[in-house]
C-alpha cells in the first residue's frame, strides 16, 4: 500500500512548526502505524533528511508512551486502540494521513510529535497514591475487597497515562485521567483514609497545570485506548463536593507526610 503523510514538523519547543509531506510506499497491512513511521524514517535518513521524532516504547499498547493525532483523531480511527496497536490494514491504499502531536498548553511540544507530559506525573505526585510505607503492611487477606469493587478499581486503574484524553478533549481537560486514578483508589478500602485530600489535591494540581475543565463532550472516552468510562469523572466530582464539605481545618499545614 501507499500513503501520503502530512506530518507536523517542529524543530524545538519554541520553533515554528509546519506540515511536511512524505510518501510512505511499500507498506503492508500487517505493519503497525509505528512500523510504517519507522519505514518512513529509514527512508528519510537514507535521503539525508532528519527523521520524524515520535515517542514510543513498549509497542504493545500498555506503556502509554506513544500517541499521535491521526486524521484529527487521537490514536487514530480504531476505538480503544493505542497508536502502536493500530494496523495499516485499517487504512485504504492511497489515503492521505495527517499526523499531529497532542496539543495542549499542559503538553508543550518538544520536537515534531513528541510532547512533554510531565504534568501528569505532577498530578499523581499531588495525591494520586495510597500512603503505604514499605514494610508496614498487614497480611493481604485481612483486607476484604468485594469482587465487584476490585473489578471497578481495575477498570479505572487500566489507564495508561498516554494523554489521549487531553488531546481529544476540546477543552484540553485531564478529568478522565485524574478521575480514573481517583476512582481506582477511592473504590478500594485501602484508599479511604486519603480519599478527601486526594481529590482536593489532584484537582488543584490539575488546574495549576493549566488543563481545561470538563464539559462532558465524551471525546476523552472515545479516544481512550482503555475505554475508561466517563463515570470516573462524575465520581471525581462527587468526591470533590463531599471532600470540600467535610474536610476540617488541618492542625498544621504540613501536608500529610
Amino acid at each position: 500500500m501507499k500513503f501520503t503523510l502530512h506530518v507536523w514538523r517542529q524543530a524545538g519547543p519554541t520553533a515554528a512548526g509546519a506540515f511536511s509531506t512524505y510518501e510512505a510506499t511499500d507498506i503492508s497491512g500487517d505493519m503497525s502505524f509505528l512500523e510504517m513511521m519507522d519505514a518512513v524514517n529509514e527512508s528519510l535518513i537514507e535521503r539525508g533528511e532528519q527523521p520524524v521524532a515520535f515517542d514510543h516504547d513498549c509497542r504493545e499498547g500498555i506503556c502509554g508512551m506513544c500517541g499521535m493525532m491521526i486524521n484529527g483523531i487521537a490514536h487514530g480511527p480504531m476505538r480503544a486502540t493505542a497508536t502502536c496497536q493500530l494496523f495499516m490494514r485499517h487504512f485504504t491504499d492511497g489515503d492521505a494521513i495527517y499526523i499531529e502531536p497532542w496539543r495542549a498548553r499542559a503538553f508543550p511540544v518538544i520536537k515534531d510529535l513528541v510532547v512533554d507530559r510531565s504534568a501528569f506525573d505532577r498530578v499523581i505526585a499531588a495525591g494520586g497514591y495510597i500512603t503505604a510505607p514499605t514494610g508496614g503492611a498487614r497480611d493481604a487477606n485481612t483486607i476484604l475487597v468485594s469482587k465487584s469493587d476490585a473489578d471497578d478499581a481495575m477498570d479505572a486503574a487500566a489507564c495508561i497515562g498516554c494523554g489521549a484524553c487531553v488531546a481529544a478533549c476540546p477543552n484540553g481537560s485531564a478529568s478522565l485521567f485524574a478521575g480514573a486514578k481517583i476512582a481506582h483508589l477511592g473504590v478500594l478500602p485501602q484508599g479511604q483514609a486519603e480519599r478527601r485530600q486526594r481529590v482536593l489535591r489532584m484537582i488543584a494540581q490539575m488546574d495549576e497545570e493549566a488543563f481545561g475543565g470538563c464539559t462532558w463532550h465524551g471525546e476523552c472516552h472515545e479516544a481512550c485506548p482503555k475505554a475508561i468510562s466517563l463515570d470516573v469523572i462524575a465520581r471525581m466530582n462527587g468526591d470533590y463536593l463531599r471532600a470540600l464539605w467535610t474536610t476540617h481545618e488541618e492542625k498544621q499545614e504540613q501536608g500529610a507526610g
Partner: protein
Amino acid sequence: MSARLDARIPGGPIAEKWDRHKFEMKLVNPANKRKHTILVVGSGLAGASAAASRAALGYQGKCFCFQDSPRRAHSIAAQGGINAAKNYQNDGDSVYRLFYDTVKGGDFRSREANVYRLAQTSLNIIDQCVAQGVPFAREYGGLLANRSFGGAQVSRTFYARGQTGQQLLLGAYQALERQVGLGHLRMYPRTEMLDLVLIDGRARGIVVRDLVTGEVTSHAADVVVLATGGYGNVFYLSTNAKGSNCTAIWRAYKRGAGFANPCFTQIHPTCIPQSGEHQSKLTLMSESLRNDGRVWVPKQKGDARPPNQIPEAERDYYLERKYPSFGNLSPRDIASRAAKEVCDEGRGVGPGGRGVYLDFADAIKRLGEHTIRERYGNLFEMYERITAENPYRVPMRIYPAVHYTMGGLWVDYNLMSTIPGLHVAGEANFSDHGANRLGASALMQGLADGYFVIPYTVGDYIGSTKLERVDASHPAFTDAERAVSERTATLLAIEGKRTVDSFHRELGKVMWDYCGMARNETGLTHALEIIPQIRDEFWRNVDVPGSAAELNQALEKAGRVADFLELGELICRDALERRESCGAHFREEFETPDGEALRDDAHFSHVAVWQYRGENQTPERLEEPLEFENVHLSQRSYK
C-alpha cells in the same frame, strides 16, 4: 574461587540466613541519612520500588529513566502475574516449595541463599502491594484469587487481569511520585545514563545525557543502584520495549563490574509469530493462555490445510505427548525448544512455517466462550488486533521469542556488584533465576530487590564504609563527561551509508541464528567471527543524522546498538565456553538421548563471571562455584 567473587552469603541454616543478616547489618543514624545521596537508574519495578523505599527512609534520592515518565518502564508490560508463597489456596505451597521450584526451574544454576530470600520476601510483596491499592483479582468473598501459572503445580500466582505488571508498577510509581511530591526524591525523566564514575575503586556517581537538550552532566553520590532491566534487545526482535537497552550495565561492565552468565537468555514460548521483515518487535501472549489452550501442529509435514479441516487424528499435541504430566504447562525453555523442533521438522504453521497452534476449541467447549472471554478477553482482543484473526474461531498461532535475560551484572548476597557501592537490582542483575526463569517470578524478583533487599543492604554499605565527600567537579567526572561527549561526536561524524536499525537487525539475526534457542560450537564460533565485523562496519559506515544538542532519537539508538554489538559478542563467548546444556542454554552437543538438556554439574555448576580487560582484549572468565545444600541436584524432568 576468586577473591573478587565473594558472594558474602551469611552463615546458618538457609531459613535463617536473611534474618540473621538483617540483624548483623550496620544501621545508619536517621540524622545522617540525609547526608547521603543514592542514585537509582531505571524506574521499573525494581528501580521505582527501591527509589521510593529509600527516599522514605530519609536518604537523598535521585532517580533516572530514559522514558518521558517513570510509569512507562517495561515492567508495565508483564501480563500474567506475580508468585508468592502465601498458600492461601491451602494446596501445599510454602516458602520452601517456592524456593525449591525456583532452583529446580532455574536448572540448578542459581544461588540457593538468594532464591530462598526471594521466596521469603514474596510474602511481604503481596501485602505491600495490596496496601498500596493494587487491584488484584478477588474471589466473590473478597479474598485474593490465585491461579497456577507457568509450570507450577500449586496456585500461587496473584494477578490483576492480564495487566499485573502494569498494576504493580503503577503502585511503585505512585509511591515514587509521592516522594517526589514531598520533595524527598528528584526524578530525571528523559535522561540516559552513559557512564559510571569510580573514585578510589568505588562507584561514586554517573554521567548522564539529557535526551531533550543533549546536555551531558554528572551526578555524584554515595551509592549507585542500577535497575535498568534486561538486554533481550540484543536480538533486535524481542518482547522488550523498543527502548530497552544494555547501555547502563554495559558501561558499568567496562568500568569493572563482572558480567554473569550473559548467555542465559530466555525464549518465551507464547508470542505472536513474526509477520514480515518490517517487524519492529514481538508481542508476548501471556503464558496463562497455556492453562486452557492446547498446543499442536499437523502430524504431516507441510500440511497446508486450514486448522479446522485437520482432523483430530492428524494433529500432534506434542507437549502433551512428550511431557504427559506437565503437558501444555511445561516450563518455558522446554516448550520453546519443542516448538522449534516441530518447526524445524517442517510441521510449523502460518507464514514461513514458524508457528504452532494454540487451540482453545476444547476449552471453549468445556467452559463456554463466556468463561474464556472472562479469563483471556483482553489477550484475545490483542491477538485479533495484531493478526486480524479471531482466536475464538481459529486457533492462535504462536512462536517463541526472546523475552527475558537471566544473566546480568554479577552481584553478591547484598546485590552489590564487584564494584563497591554499585548495586544492581531486578532483571539487570543475574541473581535469582539461574539458567531459566519460571513464569510470574520476574515481578517477584524486581519488587523483592527494590522494596525489601536494597533498602537494607544499601544502608549496611553506607553504615560500614567511610565515604569521603565528592562532588561532580572531581576530575573523574569531568574526564568521564568528556569521554561521553567524544563518543557522541564520533558517532555523529561517521556519516556513513547505513542506518542504525539496519545494523541492529543484522546483529539480531546473527544472535538468533547462532545463539538463540539452540546453540552449537560451530555456530557460536562463526558468530564470534561475524559480530566484530558488523561492529567494525558500524563504526565506519553508520549514518546518524542530526546533532548532539537536541532530541535525537537516532543518536540514542546508535549509542545503544554500539553497546549491543559488544555485548552480543560476550553472550556468544559465554555460550561457547559453557559446554553443557542447562535451562534456556541449550547446546546441541549436550543432550540426553531423548533430546533434553544435559547438564554437566562436575564442570559447570558455577556462575560464569566475565571481567573486562580493555578494548580488543578477551575478557577474563571467573567462576563462582554454586553449592547445593538444600536442593538435591537432579535431572529436571517434566515428563
